[in-house]
């Protein structure tokens, strides 16, 4: 299908790539279908986009947390992960939502609520981690600069 988007122009979306968020995500509970847009020019890029298939204006910047925080281990109840149709953590992709304000140095990442994607069946959710050490707004700019220089 062709999708008109606010940030990425007209996109060709393959049905089998569409991710299904059964309950949407907080703030966008009516948006249940998204696609993951990766950086085609740079395969190693830690950044990606979660683009809504139902609303071309809705897209969230994502980052692969492990590139900057290899020890990142959000505690999510097994039963919630099982809702995605798997018990295996390795079958899941993990991304975290990035907020990028006007001044990029102020960008923050939500480590408290990762996006989990079952790569095989395309079921996805935003789950809230039970461990208290992760916050919803973690300043990540310096960590990115450090790692990518």
């Amino acid at each position, binding site marked *: 299908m062709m999708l008109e988007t606010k940030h990425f122009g007209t996109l060709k979306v393959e049905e089998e790539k569409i991710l299904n968020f059964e309950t949407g995500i907080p*703030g966008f509970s009516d948006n249940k279908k998204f696609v993951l847009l990766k950086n085609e020019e740079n395969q190693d890029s830690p950044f990606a986009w979660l683009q809504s298939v139902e609303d071309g204006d809705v897209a969230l*910047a994502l980052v692969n947390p492990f590139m900057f925080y290899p020890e990142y281990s959000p505690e999510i*109840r*097994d039963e919630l992960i099982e809702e995605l149709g798997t018990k295996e953590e390795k079958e899941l992709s993990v991304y975290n939502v990035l*907020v990028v304000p006007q001044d990029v140095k102020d960008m923050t990442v*939500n480590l408290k*609520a990762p996006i989990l994607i079952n790569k095989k069946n395309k079921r996805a959710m935003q789950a*809230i981690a039970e461990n208290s050490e992760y916050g919803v707004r973690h300043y990540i700019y310096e960590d990115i600069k450090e790692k990518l220089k």
Partner: protein
Amino acid sequence: MLALSRKKNESIIIGDDIEITIVDVQADQVKLAINAPRKVPVYRKEIYLQIQQENKAAANISEISIEKLKNIK
């Protein structure tokens, strides 16, 4: 929104399998026990609202910020 009054140790059942019991009542704080299937997430509202807020802020990214993000890599 449904408003019910409960005394200490009384409960509410939501649907078939969620039960909320008033465990303790103090002047400014009520302690609740929640019995729900493990697959049903239960959150303090403030946390949920924070996630909601951050998601909306994330979706509110400007074109300038997108360009800057591309330049970082």
